[in-house]
Protein backbone atom coordinates (compact mmCIF):
# COMPACT_ATOMS: atom_id res chain seq x y z
CA UNK A 1 0.00 0.00 0.00
CA UNK A 2 2.67 2.45 1.08
CA UNK A 3 4.93 1.24 -1.68
CA UNK A 4 2.10 1.74 -4.13
CA UNK A 5 1.59 5.26 -2.90
CA UNK A 6 5.27 6.04 -3.34
CA UNK A 7 5.17 4.61 -6.86
CA UNK A 8 2.27 6.86 -7.82
CA UNK A 9 3.78 9.96 -6.22
CA UNK A 10 7.05 9.43 -8.02
CA UNK A 11 5.28 8.81 -11.30
CA UNK A 12 3.06 11.85 -10.92
CA UNK A 13 6.08 14.00 -10.24
CA UNK A 14 7.84 12.69 -13.34
CA UNK A 15 4.86 13.09 -15.66
CA UNK A 16 4.08 16.54 -14.37
CA UNK A 17 7.60 17.88 -14.56
CA UNK A 18 7.79 16.75 -18.19
CA UNK A 19 4.38 18.21 -18.85
CA UNK A 20 5.32 21.59 -17.43
CA UNK A 21 8.49 21.60 -19.50
CA UNK A 22 6.42 20.98 -22.62
CA UNK A 23 3.79 23.58 -21.75
CA UNK A 24 6.42 26.23 -21.30
CA UNK A 25 6.56 26.48 -25.08
CA UNK A 26 3.26 28.32 -24.91
CA UNK A 27 4.36 31.13 -22.64
CA UNK A 28 1.83 33.67 -23.90
CA UNK A 29 -1.06 31.30 -23.33
CA UNK A 30 0.18 30.61 -19.85
CA UNK A 31 0.39 34.30 -19.05
CA UNK A 32 -3.06 35.07 -20.42
CA UNK A 33 -4.55 32.14 -18.54
CA UNK A 34 -3.00 33.27 -15.26
CA UNK A 35 -4.43 36.73 -15.80
CA UNK A 36 -7.78 35.15 -16.69
CA UNK A 37 -7.96 33.09 -13.54
CA UNK A 38 -7.00 36.00 -11.34
CA UNK A 39 -9.71 38.09 -12.97
CA UNK A 40 -12.23 35.30 -12.39
CA UNK A 41 -11.36 35.35 -8.74
CA UNK A 42 -11.34 39.12 -8.50
CA UNK A 43 -15.01 39.25 -9.41
CA UNK A 44 -15.97 37.96 -5.97
CA UNK A 45 -13.83 40.61 -4.37
CA UNK A 46 -15.50 43.30 -6.48
CA UNK A 47 -18.86 42.00 -5.36
CA UNK A 48 -17.88 42.09 -1.69
CA UNK A 49 -16.31 45.49 -2.04
CA UNK A 50 -19.37 47.01 -3.72
CA UNK A 51 -21.57 45.46 -1.07
CA UNK A 52 -19.40 46.83 1.70
CA UNK A 53 -20.12 50.32 0.38
CA UNK A 54 -23.79 49.82 1.19
CA UNK A 55 -23.92 47.45 4.16
CA UNK A 56 -21.44 46.53 6.90
CA UNK A 57 -22.40 42.87 7.30
CA UNK A 58 -24.73 40.03 6.42
CA UNK A 59 -26.06 38.82 9.74
CA UNK A 60 -23.06 38.20 11.99
CA UNK A 61 -20.74 37.85 8.99
CA UNK A 62 -18.86 41.07 8.54
CA UNK A 63 -17.14 41.90 5.29
CA UNK A 64 -13.79 40.53 6.52
CA UNK A 65 -15.43 37.31 7.65
CA UNK A 66 -17.01 37.03 4.22
CA UNK A 67 -13.59 37.62 2.71
CA UNK A 68 -12.13 34.79 4.78
CA UNK A 69 -14.98 32.54 3.68
CA UNK A 70 -14.31 33.58 0.10
CA UNK A 71 -10.61 32.85 0.44
CA UNK A 72 -11.24 29.45 1.98
CA UNK A 73 -13.68 28.45 -0.73
CA UNK A 74 -11.20 29.55 -3.38
CA UNK A 75 -8.41 27.58 -1.76
CA UNK A 76 -10.69 24.55 -1.43
CA UNK A 77 -11.35 24.44 -5.17
CA UNK A 78 -7.71 25.00 -6.11
CA UNK A 79 -6.66 21.31 -5.98
CA UNK A 80 -9.52 20.64 -8.39
CA UNK A 81 -8.13 23.28 -10.70
CA UNK A 82 -4.52 22.15 -10.40
CA UNK A 83 -4.76 18.38 -10.53
CA UNK A 84 -8.11 17.52 -12.09
CA UNK A 85 -8.40 19.91 -14.99
CA UNK A 86 -8.24 17.06 -17.50
CA UNK A 87 -11.75 15.92 -16.57
CA UNK A 88 -13.19 18.88 -18.48
CA UNK A 89 -12.26 17.27 -21.79
CA UNK A 90 -13.18 13.74 -20.81
CA UNK A 91 -16.21 14.07 -23.07
CA UNK A 92 -14.05 14.70 -26.14
CA UNK A 93 -11.77 11.79 -25.23
CA UNK A 94 -14.85 9.58 -24.96
CA UNK A 95 -16.56 10.85 -28.11
CA UNK A 96 -13.44 10.53 -30.22
CA UNK A 97 -12.53 7.17 -28.73
CA UNK A 98 -9.09 8.22 -27.46
CA UNK A 99 -10.15 7.23 -23.99
CA UNK A 100 -9.31 3.62 -24.80
CA UNK A 101 -5.68 4.21 -23.88
CA UNK A 102 -6.52 4.66 -20.21
CA UNK A 103 -7.53 1.01 -20.02
CA UNK A 104 -4.21 -0.16 -21.37
CA UNK A 105 -1.64 0.78 -18.77
CA UNK A 106 -1.13 -1.11 -15.52
CA UNK A 107 -2.12 1.99 -13.60
CA UNK A 108 -5.12 3.21 -11.72
CA UNK A 109 -7.24 4.60 -14.53
CA UNK A 110 -8.39 7.75 -12.73
CA UNK A 111 -4.83 8.51 -11.71
CA UNK A 112 -3.53 7.93 -15.21
CA UNK A 113 -6.23 10.11 -16.70
CA UNK A 114 -5.82 13.12 -14.43
CA UNK A 115 -2.03 12.85 -14.34
CA UNK A 116 -1.84 13.91 -17.96
CA UNK A 117 -2.73 17.51 -17.26
CA UNK A 118 -1.40 19.76 -14.54
CA UNK A 119 -3.15 23.08 -14.76
CA UNK A 120 -0.52 25.74 -14.42
CA UNK A 121 -2.97 28.61 -14.19
CA UNK A 122 -4.28 27.07 -10.99
CA UNK A 123 -1.05 28.31 -9.44
CA UNK A 124 -2.36 31.85 -9.90
CA UNK A 125 -5.46 30.88 -8.00
CA UNK A 126 -3.40 29.23 -5.28
CA UNK A 127 -1.35 32.37 -4.73
CA UNK A 128 -4.40 34.59 -4.86
CA UNK A 129 -6.38 32.58 -2.33
CA UNK A 130 -3.48 32.38 0.10
CA UNK A 131 -3.09 36.13 0.00
CA UNK A 132 -6.78 36.63 0.72
CA UNK A 133 -6.77 34.14 3.59
CA UNK A 134 -3.74 35.71 5.22
CA UNK A 135 -5.09 39.24 4.78
CA UNK A 136 -8.56 38.44 6.09
CA UNK A 137 -7.32 36.27 8.95
CA UNK A 138 -5.28 39.21 10.19
CA UNK A 139 -8.29 41.51 9.84
CA UNK A 140 -10.59 39.24 11.83
CA UNK A 141 -7.92 38.32 14.35
CA UNK A 142 -7.70 34.63 13.53
CA UNK A 143 -4.77 33.08 15.40
CA UNK A 144 -2.48 30.70 13.52
CA UNK A 145 -1.44 28.37 16.33
CA UNK A 146 -0.06 24.89 15.74
CA UNK A 147 -3.44 23.33 16.49
CA UNK A 148 -5.49 25.76 14.41
CA UNK A 149 -3.12 25.29 11.47
CA UNK A 150 -3.48 21.52 11.66
CA UNK A 151 -7.27 21.84 11.80
CA UNK A 152 -7.18 24.29 8.92
CA UNK A 153 -5.18 21.88 6.76
CA UNK A 154 -7.44 18.94 7.64
CA UNK A 155 -10.56 20.93 6.82
CA UNK A 156 -9.01 22.21 3.62
CA UNK A 157 -8.13 18.68 2.54
CA UNK A 158 -11.62 17.36 3.15
CA UNK A 159 -13.34 20.40 1.64
CA UNK A 160 -11.29 20.17 -1.52
CA UNK A 161 -12.38 16.56 -1.97
CA UNK A 162 -16.01 17.67 -2.25
CA UNK A 163 -15.73 19.68 -5.43
CA UNK A 164 -13.26 17.12 -6.83
CA UNK A 165 -15.72 14.30 -6.19
CA UNK A 166 -18.68 16.19 -7.60
CA UNK A 167 -16.75 17.04 -10.74
CA UNK A 168 -15.60 13.44 -11.19
CA UNK A 169 -19.21 12.33 -10.92
CA UNK A 170 -20.30 14.99 -13.40
CA UNK A 171 -17.57 14.08 -15.89
CA UNK A 172 -18.35 10.39 -15.48
CA UNK A 173 -21.81 11.09 -16.84
CA UNK A 174 -19.98 11.27 -20.16
CA UNK A 175 -19.66 7.47 -20.03
CA UNK A 176 -23.42 7.23 -20.47
CA UNK A 177 -24.48 10.34 -22.36
CA UNK A 178 -22.96 12.03 -25.37
CA UNK A 179 -22.29 15.44 -23.97
CA UNK A 180 -21.68 15.82 -20.28
CA UNK A 181 -20.54 19.43 -20.57
CA UNK A 182 -23.76 20.91 -19.23
CA UNK A 183 -23.56 18.78 -16.12
CA UNK A 184 -19.93 19.75 -15.59
CA UNK A 185 -20.68 23.43 -16.01
CA UNK A 186 -23.66 23.06 -13.71
CA UNK A 187 -21.62 21.47 -10.94
CA UNK A 188 -18.67 23.79 -11.45
CA UNK A 189 -20.94 26.75 -10.68
CA UNK A 190 -21.33 25.38 -7.18
CA UNK A 191 -17.91 26.73 -6.40
CA UNK A 192 -19.31 30.24 -6.81
CA UNK A 193 -22.34 29.48 -4.70
CA UNK A 194 -20.16 28.13 -1.92
CA UNK A 195 -18.74 31.58 -1.27
CA UNK A 196 -21.76 32.84 0.63
CA UNK A 197 -22.74 31.96 4.20
CA UNK A 198 -25.38 29.25 4.32
CA UNK A 199 -27.05 31.22 7.08
CA UNK A 200 -28.74 33.40 4.44
CA UNK A 201 -31.01 30.51 3.49
CA UNK A 202 -34.29 29.42 5.07
CA UNK A 203 -34.45 26.02 6.73
CA UNK A 204 -35.47 23.97 3.72
CA UNK A 205 -32.90 25.50 1.41
CA UNK A 206 -30.23 25.22 4.06
CA UNK A 207 -30.92 21.51 4.27
CA UNK A 208 -30.88 21.35 0.47
CA UNK A 209 -27.48 23.02 0.17
CA UNK A 210 -26.07 20.85 2.92
CA UNK A 211 -27.16 17.40 1.87
CA UNK A 212 -28.60 17.46 -1.65
CA UNK A 213 -26.10 19.81 -3.22
CA UNK A 214 -23.42 19.79 -0.55
CA UNK A 215 -21.87 23.19 -1.18
CA UNK A 216 -22.06 24.01 2.51
CA UNK A 217 -19.18 21.64 3.14
CA UNK A 218 -16.93 23.33 0.59
CA UNK A 219 -16.44 26.44 2.67
CA UNK A 220 -19.25 27.46 4.99
CA UNK A 221 -19.07 24.68 7.61
CA UNK A 222 -15.28 24.49 7.72
CA UNK A 223 -15.02 28.26 7.97
CA UNK A 224 -17.62 28.39 10.74
CA UNK A 225 -15.61 25.82 12.65
CA UNK A 226 -12.55 28.02 12.30
CA UNK A 227 -13.91 31.50 13.01
CA UNK A 228 -17.15 30.98 14.94
CA UNK A 229 -16.33 27.85 16.99
CA UNK A 230 -19.16 28.73 19.39
CA UNK A 231 -21.67 27.88 16.61
CA UNK A 232 -20.46 24.31 16.35
CA UNK A 233 -23.01 21.57 15.69
CA UNK A 234 -23.11 18.01 14.44
CA UNK A 235 -22.99 18.81 10.72
CA UNK A 236 -19.88 20.86 11.28
CA UNK A 237 -18.14 18.09 13.16
CA UNK A 238 -19.11 15.59 10.49
CA UNK A 239 -17.90 17.78 7.66
CA UNK A 240 -14.33 16.37 7.43
CA UNK A 241 -15.72 12.90 6.80
CA UNK A 242 -18.18 14.05 4.22
CA UNK A 243 -15.50 14.76 1.62
CA UNK A 244 -13.87 11.37 2.01
CA UNK A 245 -17.19 9.58 1.71
CA UNK A 246 -18.14 11.53 -1.37
CA UNK A 247 -14.79 10.75 -2.99
CA UNK A 248 -15.31 7.03 -2.49
CA UNK A 249 -18.70 7.34 -4.13
CA UNK A 250 -17.26 9.35 -7.04
CA UNK A 251 -14.51 6.81 -7.62
CA UNK A 252 -16.97 3.93 -7.73
CA UNK A 253 -19.09 5.80 -10.28
CA UNK A 254 -15.98 6.38 -12.40
CA UNK A 255 -15.21 2.68 -12.20
CA UNK A 256 -18.73 1.78 -13.22
CA UNK A 257 -18.53 4.19 -16.11
CA UNK A 258 -15.33 2.56 -17.33
CA UNK A 259 -17.07 -0.79 -17.32
CA UNK A 260 -20.03 0.63 -19.17
CA UNK A 261 -18.20 2.52 -21.88
CA UNK A 262 -17.97 0.76 -25.21
CA UNK A 263 -15.69 2.99 -27.17
CA UNK A 264 -16.58 4.29 -30.58
CA UNK A 265 -16.91 2.15 -33.67
CA UNK A 266 -17.49 -1.56 -33.80
Amino acid at each position, binding site marked *: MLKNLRFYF*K*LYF*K*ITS*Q*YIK*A*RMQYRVDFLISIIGIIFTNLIGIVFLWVLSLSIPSIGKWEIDHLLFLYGFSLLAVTPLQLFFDHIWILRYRLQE*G*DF*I*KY*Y*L*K*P*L*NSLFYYVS*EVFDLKGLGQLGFSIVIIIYSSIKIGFEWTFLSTIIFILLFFSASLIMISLMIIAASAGFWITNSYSILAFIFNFKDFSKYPLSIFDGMFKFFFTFVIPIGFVAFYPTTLLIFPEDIDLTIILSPFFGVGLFILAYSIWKKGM*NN*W*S*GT*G*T
Partner: protein
Amino acid sequence: MTIIELNNLTKYFKVLKRREGLIGTIKDLFKPKHEVVKAVDNISMKIDQGEIVGFVGPNGAGKSTTIKMLIGVLKPTSGDLAIYNYLPYKQRKDYVKNIGVVIGNRTMLWWDLAVIESFKLLKEIYQISDKDYEQNLEIYNQFFNLSALYSTPVRKLSLGQKMLCEIAAAFLHNPKLIFLDEPTIGLDVAVKEKVRKLIIDLNKIKKTTILLTTHDIGDIEELCKRIILIDNGKLIYDGDIKKFNLIFGAYRTLTLELGEIDDIPIESINEEISDTFKPIEPIILKKKEEIWLTLTINQDDTKLIDILNFLMKKFSVKDIKIEEVELERVIKEVYAGGLK
Protein backbone atom coordinates in the same frame (compact mmCIF):
# COMPACT_ATOMS: atom_id res chain seq x y z
CA MET B 1 0.92 -23.52 -26.21
CA THR B 2 -2.45 -21.85 -26.50
CA ILE B 3 -2.44 -18.38 -25.01
CA ILE B 4 -5.68 -16.89 -26.29
CA GLU B 5 -8.85 -18.85 -26.09
CA LEU B 6 -12.31 -17.61 -27.05
CA ASN B 7 -15.43 -19.70 -26.77
CA ASN B 8 -18.68 -18.45 -28.28
CA LEU B 9 -17.74 -14.88 -27.53
CA THR B 10 -20.69 -12.55 -28.10
CA LYS B 11 -21.28 -8.84 -27.70
CA TYR B 12 -24.58 -7.02 -28.16
CA PHE B 13 -25.01 -3.26 -28.14
CA LYS B 14 -28.10 -1.25 -27.47
CA VAL B 15 -28.10 1.64 -29.89
CA LEU B 16 -30.27 4.73 -29.91
CA LYS B 17 -32.21 4.90 -33.16
CA ARG B 18 -32.28 8.52 -34.21
CA ARG B 19 -35.25 9.86 -36.10
CA GLU B 20 -35.01 12.39 -38.86
CA GLY B 21 -35.91 16.05 -39.00
CA LEU B 22 -36.87 18.54 -36.34
CA ILE B 23 -39.93 16.60 -35.18
CA GLY B 24 -37.88 13.43 -35.04
CA THR B 25 -35.25 15.13 -32.90
CA ILE B 26 -37.90 16.34 -30.49
CA LYS B 27 -39.37 12.85 -30.32
CA ASP B 28 -35.91 11.46 -29.54
CA LEU B 29 -35.69 13.99 -26.75
CA PHE B 30 -38.65 12.53 -24.93
CA LYS B 31 -39.07 9.00 -26.20
CA PRO B 32 -35.80 7.48 -27.36
CA LYS B 33 -35.99 4.28 -29.38
CA HIS B 34 -33.34 1.60 -29.02
CA GLU B 35 -32.35 -1.36 -31.10
CA VAL B 36 -29.99 -4.23 -30.42
CA VAL B 37 -26.96 -4.70 -32.65
CA LYS B 38 -25.05 -7.97 -32.65
CA ALA B 39 -21.52 -6.65 -33.04
CA VAL B 40 -19.82 -9.96 -32.28
CA ASP B 41 -21.76 -13.15 -32.68
CA ASN B 42 -20.49 -16.44 -31.29
CA ILE B 43 -16.83 -16.26 -32.16
CA SER B 44 -14.47 -19.05 -31.05
CA MET B 45 -10.74 -19.28 -31.67
CA LYS B 46 -7.42 -20.37 -30.25
CA ILE B 47 -4.09 -18.67 -30.76
CA ASP B 48 -0.66 -20.05 -29.85
CA GLN B 49 2.44 -18.33 -28.54
CA GLY B 50 4.61 -16.70 -31.21
CA GLU B 51 2.06 -16.58 -34.00
CA ILE B 52 1.29 -13.55 -36.12
CA VAL B 53 -2.40 -13.77 -36.80
CA GLY B 54 -4.24 -11.48 -39.17
CA PHE B 55 -7.68 -10.52 -37.98
CA VAL B 56 -9.51 -9.35 -41.04
CA GLY B 57 -12.88 -8.03 -42.05
CA PRO B 58 -14.56 -5.08 -43.72
CA ASN B 59 -15.48 -1.92 -41.80
CA GLY B 60 -18.08 -2.58 -39.14
CA ALA B 61 -17.52 -6.32 -39.18
CA GLY B 62 -16.88 -6.48 -35.45
CA LYS B 63 -13.09 -6.50 -35.48
CA SER B 64 -12.65 -3.60 -33.09
CA THR B 65 -15.33 -4.88 -30.75
CA THR B 66 -13.58 -8.24 -30.53
CA ILE B 67 -10.23 -6.57 -29.93
CA LYS B 68 -11.76 -4.33 -27.28
CA MET B 69 -12.96 -7.43 -25.46
CA LEU B 70 -9.52 -8.99 -25.78
CA ILE B 71 -7.74 -5.97 -24.33
CA GLY B 72 -10.12 -5.61 -21.42
CA VAL B 73 -12.05 -2.52 -22.50
CA LEU B 74 -15.35 -4.24 -23.13
CA LYS B 75 -17.16 -6.84 -21.14
CA PRO B 76 -18.57 -9.62 -23.35
CA THR B 77 -22.33 -10.16 -23.34
CA SER B 78 -21.75 -13.89 -23.17
CA GLY B 79 -19.14 -16.53 -23.91
CA ASP B 80 -15.73 -17.35 -22.44
CA LEU B 81 -12.50 -15.53 -22.87
CA ALA B 82 -9.10 -16.31 -21.41
CA ILE B 83 -5.70 -14.87 -22.23
CA TYR B 84 -2.76 -16.22 -20.23
CA ASN B 85 -5.42 -17.36 -17.82
CA TYR B 86 -6.52 -13.78 -17.23
CA LEU B 87 -10.05 -12.57 -17.67
CA PRO B 88 -9.13 -9.23 -19.30
CA TYR B 89 -11.95 -6.92 -18.23
CA LYS B 90 -11.91 -8.24 -14.69
CA GLN B 91 -8.19 -8.38 -13.99
CA ARG B 92 -7.37 -5.35 -16.10
CA LYS B 93 -4.39 -3.92 -14.23
CA ASP B 94 -2.52 -7.19 -13.90
CA TYR B 95 -3.46 -8.35 -17.35
CA VAL B 96 -2.29 -5.31 -19.30
CA LYS B 97 1.24 -5.68 -17.96
CA ASN B 98 1.50 -8.65 -20.30
CA ILE B 99 0.28 -7.00 -23.47
CA GLY B 100 1.12 -4.13 -25.76
CA VAL B 101 -1.43 -2.28 -27.85
CA VAL B 102 -1.06 -0.09 -30.90
CA ILE B 103 -4.08 1.51 -32.50
CA GLY B 104 -3.59 3.25 -35.84
CA ASN B 105 -4.49 6.97 -35.84
CA ARG B 106 -4.59 7.06 -32.03
CA THR B 107 -1.62 7.67 -29.81
CA MET B 108 -0.75 5.74 -26.69
CA LEU B 109 2.15 8.11 -26.02
CA TRP B 110 2.10 11.53 -24.37
CA TRP B 111 1.11 14.02 -27.00
CA ASP B 112 3.26 16.94 -25.81
CA LEU B 113 6.30 15.02 -24.67
CA ALA B 114 9.41 14.11 -26.63
CA VAL B 115 9.48 10.46 -27.69
CA ILE B 116 12.32 9.54 -25.36
CA GLU B 117 10.49 11.12 -22.42
CA SER B 118 7.47 8.98 -23.23
CA PHE B 119 9.75 5.95 -23.25
CA LYS B 120 11.20 6.93 -19.89
CA LEU B 121 7.72 7.24 -18.42
CA LEU B 122 6.82 3.83 -19.81
CA LYS B 123 9.92 2.42 -18.17
CA GLU B 124 8.67 3.84 -14.90
CA ILE B 125 5.07 2.66 -15.36
CA TYR B 126 5.93 -0.90 -16.35
CA GLN B 127 8.89 -0.95 -13.98
CA ILE B 128 11.16 -2.14 -16.75
CA SER B 129 14.63 -3.06 -15.54
CA ASP B 130 17.52 -0.88 -16.71
CA LYS B 131 19.01 -3.82 -18.53
CA ASP B 132 15.88 -4.63 -20.55
CA TYR B 133 15.29 -0.96 -21.28
CA GLU B 134 18.82 -0.36 -22.57
CA GLN B 135 18.70 -3.54 -24.56
CA ASN B 136 15.48 -2.52 -26.29
CA LEU B 137 16.73 0.95 -27.10
CA GLU B 138 19.83 -0.71 -28.51
CA ILE B 139 17.68 -2.88 -30.78
CA TYR B 140 15.60 0.07 -31.93
CA ASN B 141 18.75 1.97 -32.75
CA GLN B 142 20.59 -0.78 -34.48
CA PHE B 143 17.76 -1.99 -36.66
CA PHE B 144 15.60 1.05 -37.25
CA ASN B 145 17.68 4.09 -36.40
CA LEU B 146 14.88 5.30 -34.18
CA SER B 147 17.08 7.53 -32.04
CA ALA B 148 16.85 10.25 -34.67
CA LEU B 149 13.27 10.82 -33.55
CA TYR B 150 13.82 10.72 -29.79
CA SER B 151 13.91 14.43 -29.11
CA THR B 152 10.84 15.31 -31.20
CA PRO B 153 7.52 15.81 -29.41
CA VAL B 154 4.99 13.16 -30.41
CA ARG B 155 2.58 15.69 -31.89
CA LYS B 156 5.24 16.88 -34.33
CA LEU B 157 6.04 13.43 -35.75
CA SER B 158 4.75 12.48 -39.17
CA LEU B 159 2.13 9.75 -39.29
CA GLY B 160 4.68 7.12 -40.26
CA GLN B 161 7.27 8.19 -37.70
CA LYS B 162 4.59 8.18 -35.05
CA MET B 163 3.55 4.65 -35.94
CA LEU B 164 7.15 3.42 -35.71
CA CYS B 165 7.46 4.99 -32.27
CA GLU B 166 4.10 3.61 -31.16
CA ILE B 167 5.15 0.11 -32.13
CA ALA B 168 8.53 0.51 -30.45
CA ALA B 169 6.75 1.74 -27.33
CA ALA B 170 4.40 -1.23 -27.35
CA PHE B 171 7.35 -3.63 -27.41
CA LEU B 172 9.29 -1.73 -24.76
CA HIS B 173 8.18 -3.73 -21.74
CA ASN B 174 8.68 -7.04 -23.57
CA PRO B 175 5.04 -8.08 -23.57
CA LYS B 176 4.20 -11.61 -24.60
CA LEU B 177 1.30 -10.49 -26.74
CA ILE B 178 0.82 -7.44 -28.95
CA PHE B 179 -2.35 -6.11 -30.50
CA LEU B 180 -1.88 -4.06 -33.63
CA ASP B 181 -5.05 -2.38 -34.83
CA GLU B 182 -4.68 -0.97 -38.36
CA PRO B 183 -0.99 -0.14 -37.95
CA THR B 184 -0.58 0.96 -41.56
CA ILE B 185 -3.76 2.98 -41.94
CA GLY B 186 -3.22 6.21 -43.83
CA LEU B 187 0.45 5.55 -44.57
CA ASP B 188 2.03 5.68 -48.01
CA VAL B 189 3.54 2.59 -49.59
CA ALA B 190 7.17 3.21 -48.64
CA VAL B 191 6.31 3.88 -45.00
CA LYS B 192 4.00 0.88 -44.89
CA GLU B 193 6.99 -1.27 -45.86
CA LYS B 194 9.04 0.20 -43.02
CA VAL B 195 6.31 -0.45 -40.49
CA ARG B 196 5.84 -4.01 -41.69
CA LYS B 197 9.57 -4.67 -41.49
CA LEU B 198 9.65 -3.36 -37.93
CA ILE B 199 6.83 -5.68 -36.97
CA ILE B 200 8.41 -8.74 -38.60
CA ASP B 201 11.84 -8.08 -37.12
CA LEU B 202 10.55 -7.48 -33.62
CA ASN B 203 8.44 -10.61 -33.83
CA LYS B 204 11.51 -12.60 -34.83
CA ILE B 205 13.76 -11.13 -32.15
CA LYS B 206 11.28 -11.29 -29.33
CA LYS B 207 9.01 -14.21 -30.26
CA THR B 208 6.02 -12.07 -29.41
CA THR B 209 2.56 -13.20 -30.35
CA ILE B 210 0.94 -10.61 -32.60
CA LEU B 211 -2.71 -10.17 -33.34
CA LEU B 212 -3.03 -7.84 -36.29
CA THR B 213 -6.25 -6.17 -37.33
CA THR B 214 -6.26 -4.67 -40.77
CA HIS B 215 -8.12 -4.40 -43.97
CA ASP B 216 -5.03 -4.00 -46.04
CA ILE B 217 -4.37 -7.23 -47.94
CA GLY B 218 -0.73 -6.23 -48.26
CA ASP B 219 -0.30 -6.28 -44.47
CA ILE B 220 -1.72 -9.76 -44.32
CA GLU B 221 0.33 -11.17 -47.16
CA GLU B 222 3.59 -9.88 -45.75
CA LEU B 223 3.06 -10.42 -42.05
CA CYS B 224 0.71 -13.27 -41.28
CA LYS B 225 0.88 -17.03 -41.38
CA ARG B 226 -2.69 -17.40 -40.38
CA ILE B 227 -5.78 -15.30 -40.91
CA ILE B 228 -9.13 -15.06 -39.23
CA LEU B 229 -11.83 -13.50 -41.34
CA ILE B 230 -14.97 -12.04 -39.82
CA ASP B 231 -18.00 -10.37 -41.32
CA ASN B 232 -21.21 -9.17 -39.68
CA GLY B 233 -19.87 -10.27 -36.32
CA LYS B 234 -19.46 -13.87 -37.44
CA LEU B 235 -16.29 -15.84 -38.03
CA ILE B 236 -16.24 -16.92 -41.65
CA TYR B 237 -12.73 -18.28 -42.11
CA ASP B 238 -9.90 -19.28 -39.81
CA GLY B 239 -6.87 -20.89 -41.36
CA ASP B 240 -3.60 -20.88 -43.19
CA ILE B 241 -2.57 -17.82 -45.13
CA LYS B 242 -1.06 -20.06 -47.81
CA LYS B 243 -4.42 -21.34 -48.86
CA PHE B 244 -5.70 -17.82 -48.88
CA ASN B 245 -2.74 -16.61 -50.90
CA LEU B 246 -3.06 -19.45 -53.31
CA ILE B 247 -6.36 -18.12 -54.44
CA PHE B 248 -6.36 -14.40 -53.88
CA GLY B 249 -2.66 -13.71 -54.02
CA ALA B 250 -2.73 -14.50 -57.73
CA TYR B 251 -5.81 -12.48 -58.57
CA ARG B 252 -5.29 -9.26 -60.41
CA THR B 253 -7.78 -6.77 -61.69
CA LEU B 254 -6.81 -5.32 -65.01
CA THR B 255 -8.22 -2.03 -66.18
CA LEU B 256 -7.48 -0.66 -69.63
CA GLU B 257 -8.37 2.59 -71.29
CA LEU B 258 -9.16 1.98 -74.92
CA GLY B 259 -9.13 4.17 -77.98
CA GLU B 260 -11.94 4.27 -80.53
CA ILE B 261 -13.79 0.95 -80.72
CA ASP B 262 -17.05 1.98 -82.30
CA ASP B 263 -16.80 -0.43 -85.16
CA ILE B 264 -15.69 -3.47 -83.19
CA PRO B 265 -18.39 -5.89 -82.06
CA ILE B 266 -17.87 -5.93 -78.31
CA GLU B 267 -20.06 -8.92 -77.74
CA SER B 268 -17.86 -11.16 -79.79
CA ILE B 269 -14.68 -9.93 -78.15
CA ASN B 270 -16.20 -10.59 -74.78
CA GLU B 271 -16.88 -14.11 -75.80
CA GLU B 272 -13.42 -14.54 -77.21
CA ILE B 273 -11.74 -13.34 -74.04
CA SER B 274 -13.95 -15.52 -71.92
CA ASP B 275 -13.18 -18.58 -73.96
CA THR B 276 -9.42 -18.11 -74.19
CA PHE B 277 -8.62 -16.68 -70.77
CA LYS B 278 -11.43 -17.63 -68.41
CA PRO B 279 -11.53 -14.45 -66.30
CA ILE B 280 -12.80 -14.82 -62.74
CA GLU B 281 -15.52 -12.26 -63.19
CA PRO B 282 -17.42 -11.05 -66.24
CA ILE B 283 -15.81 -8.28 -68.18
CA ILE B 284 -17.09 -4.78 -67.50
CA LEU B 285 -17.02 -2.20 -70.17
CA LYS B 286 -17.67 1.42 -69.25
CA LYS B 287 -18.21 4.04 -71.85
CA LYS B 288 -18.13 7.62 -70.64
CA GLU B 289 -15.78 10.17 -72.10
CA GLU B 290 -13.19 7.44 -72.19
CA ILE B 291 -13.75 3.75 -72.66
CA TRP B 292 -12.61 1.55 -69.81
CA LEU B 293 -12.45 -2.22 -69.85
CA THR B 294 -12.11 -4.10 -66.56
CA LEU B 295 -11.46 -7.78 -65.99
CA THR B 296 -10.14 -9.91 -63.14
CA ILE B 297 -7.88 -12.86 -63.89
CA ASN B 298 -6.06 -15.52 -61.95
CA GLN B 299 -2.37 -15.22 -62.69
CA ASP B 300 -1.86 -18.92 -62.08
CA ASP B 301 -4.14 -19.73 -65.00
CA THR B 302 -3.47 -16.83 -67.29
CA LYS B 303 -0.30 -14.92 -67.92
CA LEU B 304 -0.82 -11.20 -67.70
CA ILE B 305 1.37 -10.65 -70.69
CA ASP B 306 -0.75 -12.97 -72.83
CA ILE B 307 -3.92 -11.14 -72.16
CA LEU B 308 -2.25 -7.80 -72.73
CA ASN B 309 -0.88 -8.99 -76.04
CA PHE B 310 -4.28 -10.22 -77.04
CA LEU B 311 -6.02 -7.00 -76.15
CA MET B 312 -3.42 -4.77 -77.71
CA LYS B 313 -3.83 -6.53 -81.00
CA LYS B 314 -7.55 -5.84 -80.99
CA PHE B 315 -7.61 -2.33 -79.57
CA SER B 316 -5.47 0.71 -79.25
CA VAL B 317 -4.68 0.71 -75.52
CA LYS B 318 -4.05 4.14 -74.02
CA ASP B 319 -3.56 3.31 -70.34
CA ILE B 320 -3.22 0.24 -68.13
CA LYS B 321 -3.87 -0.25 -64.41
CA ILE B 322 -3.18 -3.49 -62.53
CA GLU B 323 -4.57 -3.89 -58.99
CA GLU B 324 -4.74 -6.54 -56.29
CA VAL B 325 -8.23 -7.63 -55.35
CA GLU B 326 -10.13 -5.77 -52.64
CA LEU B 327 -11.04 -7.33 -49.34
CA GLU B 328 -14.74 -6.93 -49.98
CA ARG B 329 -14.44 -9.12 -53.01
CA VAL B 330 -12.46 -11.74 -51.07
CA ILE B 331 -15.26 -11.95 -48.57
CA LYS B 332 -17.83 -12.38 -51.29
CA GLU B 333 -15.70 -15.22 -52.60
CA VAL B 334 -15.50 -16.84 -49.16
CA TYR B 335 -19.26 -16.85 -48.92
CA ALA B 336 -19.39 -18.41 -52.36
CA GLY B 337 -17.17 -21.22 -51.12
CA GLY B 338 -13.85 -20.08 -52.58
CA LEU B 339 -11.80 -21.19 -49.58
CA LYS B 340 -13.48 -24.50 -48.94
